[in-house]
């Protein structure tokens, strides 16, 4: 609690605010994740990122229906706008 007060985070959006200009990890619907430098956001969690790496996670299934090890497809985008309604989670990347 003290920590929380100390950081002055009074609402969750502050957490996002603190990540402005920093690299964030964003989990999106549809098994997608995105990391990039957060440039802007709004209350809808619309977000503008740069130096983005988008990852799409697949879990393929064999013909028998057994899941194969998860697979990921990545791509890099210089600048990306992410619409807020797809956002599940935002976290500053650990470092």
């Amino acid at each position, binding site marked *: 609690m003290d920590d929380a007060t100390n950081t002055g985070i009074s609402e969750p959006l502050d957490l996002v605010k*603190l990540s402005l200009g920093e690299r964030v990890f964003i989990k999106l619907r549809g098994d997608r994740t995105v990391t990039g430098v957060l440039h802007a956001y709004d209350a809808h969690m619309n977000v503008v990122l740069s130096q983005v790496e988008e990852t799409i996670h697949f879990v393929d299934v064999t013909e028998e229906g057994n899941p194969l090890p998860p697979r990921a497809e990545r791509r890099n985008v210089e600048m990306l706008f992410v619409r807020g309604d797809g956002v599940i989670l935002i976290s500053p990347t650990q470092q």
Partner: protein
Amino acid sequence: MSGFFGFDAALPERRPGQPGGGGESARHQFSGFQASNTDETFALSGAGEEEDLAVYTWGEGMGGGLLEGGDELNDETFGDVGEISNTFQFSSQPAQQPAKPSYGHNQSTGRGPIASTQSRYKPKVAADPFAFSEDDFYSRPAAKKPAAKGPSRPKAQTAQSGSVEGLWNKPALPSPAWGTAPSSMSKPTPPPAASYSAYPSAPSGPPGHIKTLEEIEAEMSQLDVTGPSAKSLTGQPKVLSLEEIEKQMMESMEPPRQPTPQQYVAPPREATPTTVPGLPGSGYGTQKALLDSMFPELGQGSIPTQRAGPFPPGPEGVPPPPSGPSPDEIARMEAIHNRISAKIESMAQHNNLMGSSDKDFITRIQLSQLATADPYTSDFYAQVFSALKRSRIAAEGQGEGPTVVPVAAGLGLGVGGPVGNRFGKMGSNTMQKLSTQVKKLVENRAQHQKVMNTAALQGALGRVTRGNAAAPRPVLAIPTSNKPEHRAASHLNEQTGIHRAALTRKQIMFALEELYDAVLELEQMRREAPPPTAMEEIEVWHARCQARVDNIWRRLMVMEPLDVSNPHPFISLLNPIKGQRLFPRLLRHLPHNQSITMLSLLIATYPQLDVVARAPPPPVADASLLTKADRLDRAKREAETDNFLHCIIPGVDMIINRCGLGLVAGMLAISAQRSEVWKVASTRPGVALYTALLSKAQSLIRAPAPDPLNPQQSHSPDPAEIDQWSKTFTYFLHVLLPHLPELFPSSVAQKAAFGPGAYLLGGDSIGEREAVEMERREAEVWGFAAALAVNAAEEEQTSLVAALREKILHTVQAARNPATGPIRSEIKLRNVNMFLNGLGLDAAMIE
């Protein structure tokens, strides 16, 4: 039901029909459903008709034939092939029996079904062999030809044909139309495909004759109306399978039929493929084969039973059916036929009865049914059906419960009414209903959406609002206990003097955000300076700005005790790239003394900087040797370092440039005392800082030129300051000298090169770009060494050279090595010379 089906078919086809030859395409468009129905129905009926029925068929088609055929076909199209008979029960019986006796449906149906069924079945089976009858078709009355229905009658029947023809001829008028009409053609032709093919051949029929579906419908409706008397004949109360019905009908009709040759004819036709009248040219045989292949069971299985029924009537004796209809029957049949043909004729008058509005109407119904909860209310067919059914039930009264699945009670539509009535009544009535329904639908929709948007539940959880992901709404009013005033900066500022934990990253970030806000505010305020004339306002404005600056200063936490934490809060602020970016913007607003203070603090705590404490290791030759995390970490640290050099160092330079020698000496002293100089110097930020300090000092000592920006420093340095500086420098150099060679990135790389990472050695195997980058970094250190050289006393210079001797030689040799690229060798020489020139030497002098 037959009526409906007939209608169905008609409606869709109608459109095609209108265009005239477009029938085919229309069918296609309508896909299998109605179009196909019609086609098939007709085809079937046609098949049956081939005998004579063809003529009827239309009339009958309306009633029985159409139904049967249509149903079956429908089923098939829908995948329900097997149950034809059942379907039939519905349509055929209800239609026939209940349908007002007047329809003559019964008769027609009776025949129709028979004919049709037979035709279907038999033709396929038996008929196929005979199918060649195209010739027959053609040979037969030209008049018939046009009427596809008039179809081919077996050769055997030819004799009968005469009589039949008589019947046909009458219908011929109408029939030609049908036959000729693409749409009509299609009807007679069994399978759609067949019908298509038939068209081409059909040309024989007068094009003008072609009737549209509408016409057909009209005719059919007329038939219905007129039919009644005939019905009575066939009318059998029970809902039976088609076969049953047929049988019954056959039986009942047999006596009368005999007289009529046509009927007889019919049976043979069935047997003979020729039955397909409309299809003449189109290779009827193949078509039939197709049909057979499609419904083999139908053809074979049903044939016998049906045959028995229909055949008997064979008037001319030709018909194989042993049970042959009695003369009475035949006569009766003939009478019916006559009636029917008459009807058809009269019906023909009503061709084109349906206008485009009617069609629209139907379309609308169909559309509305897609959206309404009660699809039957405006379902024309359902209503007609129910009307028919009701009437049948009423007629039956006594009898068998309705086999038909009850359809939602519809509005009684006057199907049975006078010809003109049908649409008139229904149109006005239902149209209205429809339009209101549509209106309602639209309104509902709009309302619904509105409701959905604002739907809010008042509950224990507070106001539950249905927002959506894109536009969320607050679900709950959460009490926020944290006031923004509890921010880290002020919090920390209140407590002084004690060691505390370093700021958490979150705290740093928060403080930075606050700082950003404050700086932005201040910048905005600066921009809104009042006009220089308004003295008072300016003062107020100044005061306000100053308040902001003070606020910012406080937030920077520069005044926190030096050892309050490690890293110092201020350094913490400079660690993130975000904070580094803020630095130059801050600097602009801070007064000189504050910036000096800040610089002092920065230098004192320089080792705490991330870029110093966690300076990136030298680059490796092959990045693939690193793990991904390693790579990322390096990249991040490199980025931070670059950013630091880009954002902070210029500011530092600027501040240092404003400093007098005493201050510079003091700063160097602080650094030398508080940190392991060589460690700091082994980082790029450290090198940059020291180089700046040394350069400034030397420039102050050597050329105390007046600084326009800082007049107070224009005076030449105080000897005491110079003395202090030299002492400080001596100490600094003393500490640093042993490590001097190790400051070079190439040296570091060399040391590390024995590890797993093949670090860049400035060797030959690395790419040009990396090599140049390496040299560039080397240059930074050489520049630092040069700064040392210019500041060093003579004996210090000697030791300096001694310390760097190997490095110098190695670099010069490398530069002269032909294996080294020209660019790199040039850089190397320039680097070395940067240092040597500071000593008054040159690389050229070496060896």
